[in-house]
């Protein structure tokens, strides 16, 4: 990893996690390494809304993956169901947890092997937040 890339990654992480800065920040970011066979990954994180208005996320993209879908796993009557979500709402001055077994991001179609992943969160075409992290096993 080049020194310039490390600095960029550190800057992105700092921007993503800085309290009181941008309206939206994130912490506890975990993105799993793509599973062999299907090449899918899951992303879990806590989104923090530092503003007085609800923040609505309508799409997430990643340069390392062909698609990122907002999903929710629901366990009902012993059956696990995964449902796409059109939006994620982070309440004003509140948090939204994307957690194992609940709301999460599904990343599919990993490109060239990479040890890091970047996620861009949008409201429509408006960028809200960018985070980067190292893939975890």
């Amino acid at each position, binding site marked *: 990893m080049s020194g310039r890339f490390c600095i960029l990654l550190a800057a992105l992480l700092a921007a993503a996690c800085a309290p009181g800065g941008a309206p939206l920040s994130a912490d506890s970011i975990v993105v799993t390494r793509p599973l*062999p*066979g*299907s090449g899918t990954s899951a992303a879990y994180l806590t989104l923090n809304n530092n503003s007085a208005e609800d923040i609505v996320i309508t799409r997430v993209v990643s340069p390392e993956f062909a698609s990122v879908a907002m999903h929710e796993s629901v366990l009902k009557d*012993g059956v696990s169901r995964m449902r*796409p979500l059109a939006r994620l709402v982070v309440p004003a001055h509140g948090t939204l947890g994307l957690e194992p077994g609940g709301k999460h991001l599904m990343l*599919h179609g990993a490109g060239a092997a990479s040890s890091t992943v970047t996620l861009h969160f949008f409201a429509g075409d408006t960028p809200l937040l960018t985070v980067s992290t190292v893939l975890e096993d």
Partner: protein
Amino acid sequence: MMQTIRLFIASIALAAVAAGGWFAYRLAGPPPLPRTATVLPAPADLPEFSLVDGHGNAFDRDSLRGSWSLLFFGFTHCPDVCPLTLQALASARQELETAGIEPLPRIVFVSVDPERDTAEVVRDYAAHFGAATTGVTGDMTQLRQLTNGLGIFFQKSNRESDNYSVDHSAVVLLVGPDAKFHALFGAPHEAANFVHDLPLIMASR
């Protein structure tokens, strides 16, 4: 007179033994019971089925004979619940091995998405969770034969999309070396529950 004394001493001894047993029971408590597993009163037969493992070898009811197996039904494009469950099973097995528990169960992942999950895909996917995990897939009719006989539900959702999902039972089944269904674990799954319950169930059968 001597006979009366002997009888008296014998009665005292008997009472002491009974009291000792009662105190031991109170101190040790009743035998531990499974915490989360539902154990069938009598093992149930599995239906006949014919699937394939990740290497393309036949995988049928007889393939389950000879060792304890934990069966989980899922699909490889499931990024959340399926890998979490398989990881919990692999972790539990590792803990049991570290604790010196025998026999150790193997883990069998049965794909409910044979359309995308070829033998090669389930082989690579299962290997991610360790050498004790076997991936199984195959013909939909044969898969239904197995799942219907075990009460396992699965159904495609948002099927208009190429990136469809599959709703599926999240239960983990315990199959014995007799290739019979002995117990089931309801979701959500935690490794600690398997570590606690499996030795109790396996020892009781």
